[in-house]
């Protein structure tokens, strides 16, 4: 079969691809958990202004990023949504926390908060623990508990409340937190157990209301960072890590729904 696209057009396309300027400084490549998507970009911008080091983030589920790093993805720093995945990489010898007190333990850079979120126009009562016991709750969205840290926390919280078995048939499992939020925001699920970072995004903050699930109901959602051992920019990575853990940035994190570690 003959292509209808004129050859000249293809040549022009190829030319344009080659003309894209090559960069002098290779930017830091950050593999970041999906819950950081509303949080991280402004921090990376400020980091560049402060230090002149450019950093670019790829947002994905922590599990996906882990698989990619295991298979040689060229990242410099991995900001996970939990401790399990970064630990797995350390154990495999692919990542480390060199330069810290314990180089075989991921660096905790923030703690996550689980919230129960529902749309403001829901026919059910506003989010609270009572909502979880309401018979009107037909569909409760959670993130996949097998790998999403917030999904695990959601199941743990429901179990602590002795509600897990009763609610199990009504659970709809999303791939990650933002998809769980979409299930609820689109009106297909009545409520969802999601991250505070998601609930504080402008979109969800305007359409819904949230209730902070008491912290004693689930083990802490500790978010860990590791340095990908293959990095060629170790010094720059450390600068970024220090920046993330600095007091002003940690305060900034708190506003977006992540609890500071100090």
């Amino acid at each position, binding site marked *: 079969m003959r292509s209808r696209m004129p050859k000249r057009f293809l040549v022009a396309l190829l030319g344009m691809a080659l003309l894209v300027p090559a960069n002098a400084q290779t930017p830091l490549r950050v593999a970041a958990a999906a819950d950081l998507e509303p949080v991280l970009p402004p921090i990376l911008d400020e980091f560049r202004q402060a230090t002149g080091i450019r950093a670019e983030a790829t947002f994905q589920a922590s599990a996906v990023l882990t*698989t990619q790093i295991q298979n040689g993805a060229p990242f410099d720093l991995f900001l996970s949504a939990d401790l399990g995945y970064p630990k797995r990489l350390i154990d495999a010898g692919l990542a480390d926390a060199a330069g810290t007190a314990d180089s075989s333990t991921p660096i905790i850079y923030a703690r996550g908060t689980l919230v129960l979120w529902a749309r403001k126009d829901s026919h059910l009562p506003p989010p609270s623990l009572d909502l979880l016991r309401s018979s009107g709750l037909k569909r409760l969205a959670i993130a*996949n508990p097998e790998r999403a840290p917030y999904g695990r926390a959601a199941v743990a919280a429901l179990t602590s409340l002795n509600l897990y078995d009763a609610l199990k048939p009504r659970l709809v499992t*999303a791939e990650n937190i933002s998809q769980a939020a979409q299930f609820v925001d689109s009106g297909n699920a009545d409520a969802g157990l999601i991250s505070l970072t998601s609930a504080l995004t402008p979109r969800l903050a305007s359409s819904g209301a949230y209730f902070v699930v008491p912290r004693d109901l689930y083990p802490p959602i500790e978010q860990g960072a590791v340095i990908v051992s293959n990095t060629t920019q170790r010094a720059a990575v450390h600068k970024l890590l220090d920046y993330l853990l600095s007091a002003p940035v940690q305060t900034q994190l708190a506003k977006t729904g992540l609890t500071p570690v100090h």
Partner: protein
Amino acid sequence: MDWQAFALSLKLATVTTAILLAVAVPLAALLVLGRSRWLAALEALAALPLVLPPTVLGFFLLVLLGPRTAVGRGITSLLGHPLAFSFSGLVVGSVIYSLPFAVQPLVAGFAVVEPALVDAARLLGANPARLVLSLLVPLARRSLLAAAVLSFLHTMGEFGVVLMLGGDIPGATRTLSIVLYNQVENFDYAAANRTAAALLGMSVVALAAIYLGSRPKGGRRA
């Protein structure tokens, strides 16, 4: 091996393929035989699912079929339950998602039927339905087969739409490809290998059976 998911995937692919053929045959015939300029827009529309990333398509469907749109409310009052997170919801999603894979081969197949034959059938009084069933379909039967096979396989391997629209409910929306994805994501590579082997093996068997059944005696070009 998750036999429930296996059976669910088979059922979804079969139901979707049947519906798709029933929809795509008249649609493709309309696109080939019709003269209205609006048909170009319709053809473009029918190809659109190819452009959207499956999860995005799934997201749009989730919103469209949800209780916040008139369409979604209409369907809910008609069925008594919302389409999202149900098997029928997956069928709707799959039909839309795989539509181009049914329509494109049929359009290609119908378009090469000689216009003189179509004229002859019209002169002899064939109405559009008869034109399609007695002439276009038998003459383009390999395209029909291709449409069926592609729809079936595309639905078997469908992931993004199911992920978005399904909610991973065992027995209702947890298909084999979701199971496979979960196994890979959970680093359970041994189970993933088995599931993938089952998916591939079954597809090869199904395809071979279809091609064998459709193969004319004495070779394909007889």
